[in-house]
């Protein structure tokens, strides 16, 4: 497996020009996620109206994989209902862990094809947490679980 497969154009684009990388002026949910192993951190801000994710953003430091994943996560989840967002999050988490996802038929092709840029991370097991940190942080934010958490403790 070559490095090129991991660092695809879509990932490099999001890593070097991350979307929604700011603190929202108005948010009603936020969570900071950390990766103890490497020091990456992702702070997710969400503004929800009823169960609709009106707006979502992030701040943080991390490697290209982590920042690209955070950027793509915010693009993917913006304007989604909580329940749809959870389907997408689970789809992504299964994708990078090479697990079968039973709800993948619910996901539209545009989202599916962009998220698949992360598929080759399966061959880089040490980097899976880099990709999942933003998504698990988003899940934690949506569910209002914790203000701070560490991905190493995530079950």
């Amino acid at each position, binding site marked *: 497996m070559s*490095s090129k497969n991991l660092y695809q154009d879509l990932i490099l684009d999001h890593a070097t020009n991350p979307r929604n990388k700011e603190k929202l002026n108005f948010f009603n949910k936020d969570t900071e996620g950390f990766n103890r192993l490497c020091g990456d951190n992702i702070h997710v801000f969400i503004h929800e109206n009823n169960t609709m994710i009106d707006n979502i953003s992030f701040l943080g430091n991390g*490697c290209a994989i982590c920042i690209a994943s955070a950027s793509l996560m915010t693009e993917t989840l913006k304007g989604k209902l909580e329940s749809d967002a959870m389907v997408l999050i689970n789809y992504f988490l299964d994708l990078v862990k090479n697990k079968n996802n039973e709800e993948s038929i619910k996901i539209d092709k545009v989202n599916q094809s962009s998220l698949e840029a992360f598929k080759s991370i399966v061959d880089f097991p040490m*980097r899976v947490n880099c990709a999942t940190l933003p998504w698990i942080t988003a899940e934690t934010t949506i569910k209002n679980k914790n203000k701070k958490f560490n991905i190493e403790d995530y079950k």
Partner: protein
Amino acid sequence: MLNDIKDQFPIFKNKIKGKRLVYLDSANSSQKPQSVIDAVNNFYANDFSNVGRGIYTLAVSASEKYELTRTNIKKFIGTDNETEVIFTKNATESLNLVASCFGEKFINKGDEIILTELEHHANYVPWHFLRQKKGAIIKFLPIDQYGDLKINELENLITNKTKIISVTHMSNVTGTISPLDKIISIAKKHNIPVCVDGTQGAAHLDVNLKELDCDFYAFSGHKMYGPTGVGLLALKYKWLELFEPFLGGGGMIDFVSKKEIAYARGVWKMEAGTMPTAEVVALNESINFINNIGKKNIINHENELTQLALEKLQNMKSVKIVANPKLQGGVFSFNLDQIHSHDVSTILDQEGVAVRGGHHCCQVLHDVLNINSSVRVSFGVYNTSEDLEVLCESIKKCQKIFKQ
């Protein structure tokens, strides 16, 4: 001189992702020569018994082998008659032992401990425990713009509350070599004991404790081409007498009754329970390995490689070396503009190059340097200038992938 050393390390016969292994992570742990691997096997196959207990033939011979390593380690680090060496699990445990035993007896609320900004977490966290438990104050001797310690500021940090100074022999990030002679002579003037974290020093720098005259010198076997599981602590005998035991159990007692317990004296007081026996015995072979090559040759070899690497990397675009200390061992760290250290590390790995990315257990130092992480290159006896060629080519690959 060191050209065919690689042949003594079986790991280099293997390919990594189809590529020749370029191992540049000896500051993390060194690879093992065949003689050390054989010594572990041989001890288990032919000589194994626990030490210090039985009086049958095998037990006596195992105990002798175990003690032979102690004798040779003492020669290796040039101790005098007043200094002993005890075995622990790793250098971290050695430093925890010093902080815990010293702190228990000699640190009270408001007492001060001086560390440096270069310290590995292993020489900070154990002292932080004393800050929490005892209300001690920790001060950090700063580094200058080159990554050298500002030795002139040490005198100003010392007060009549300063109880101990604990300092690294060599930084595992910048390769900075601490001016231990100056630090120890200043400390002596104020009657303050000095603990040295020699983890990076033991296999790569001149170590003569008789000349150095520090109170404690902590190091580990696995960074000196020896087995994992053995740490070492050289300490002045007076501290062995003053300290309470670190761990309690078998082997560290003189006698035990329902009413009272008397502890063993000397090194035995600090070696409770079954020790990493095979590892200690095999460590003797790693001392032989280093002695056969000669410390001077090792130092020259690693210095040459470091200078050559720095020259090559400084001429590459977007490479930034994080510090340029005047006194430097075979370690340095760098960052590539706009590329995170873990991305660099992953791409280098695809080329067979093993380097560590991250903060290398030195978050304070990375804060001071104002960086989140770095890529570290560290050398051992087996590295060659060809390794540096591969390193440079792999760095170019990172830049290409990131379209720089």
